[in-house]
């Protein structure tokens, strides 16, 4: 099929996830959306042929940063102020 269609779909999900994460009031949902952003970014890296960068992005962006963000939310407040 069209070779660029998969990239268009991935970039669309990436941008939509970024915008949704900016707009959400519930911070826990925003962290999950950021994890979607990281995972889509890793998939785009796979499509571009950079497997090492994709692996790092998937492990760090979707794993460690998510845990630390959730921990910071648990320690402070769950709702966004603005």
């Amino acid at each position, binding site marked *: 099929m069209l070779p660029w269609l998969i990239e268009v779909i991935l970039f669309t999900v990436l941008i939509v996830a970024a915008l949704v994460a900016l707009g959400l009031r519930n911070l826990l949902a925003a962290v999950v959306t950021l994890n979607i952003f990281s995972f889509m970014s890793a998939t785009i890296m796979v499509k571009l042929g950079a*497997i*090492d960068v994709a*692996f*790092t992005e998937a492990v760090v962006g979707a*794993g*460690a940063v998510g845990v*630390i963000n959730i921990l910071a939310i648990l*320690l402070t407040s769950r709702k966004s102020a603005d």
Partner: protein
Amino acid sequence: MNEVNRDLLLRRHMEGPIVSPIVHVCCRGLAPFIQITGLYVFFHGHYSPGGGFQGGVLLAASIIMLRMSLGLADSQRIMPNRLPIPLAALGALIYAGTGLLAMLWGGSYLDYSFLPLPMLDPAMLRYVGILVIELGVTICVMSTLISIYDNLLGS
């Protein structure tokens, strides 16, 4: 937010484990496989995507998962609380010490072909040197992430 809510939350996370048996069994059963995957990623970094950083983060993720499910008190046997910062320093020291060792034996800094290992040609010496510094990166990243988690919980 306020101090009372935060202290309650801290106490819940620090003392007792999570009560749900499903979460308990899943985390305890999954952790060894994540650790094996982390070690595979670290040791197989010469031949496939991966390396020290990714393997270290995977190892740290398994231990953080055990910390979250078992509670801080029961996971002390796997990784004691006072250990991560000295381990991180040890990892950075392994990396810098390898470079310094090559410099003492006549090469330039971080030139692994001058490492003092007998019966190896320079290409294999560089192979071994890459493995040693990846070990340092793995230890440093793993224990730094665990230490950040522990300090955020206020241990």
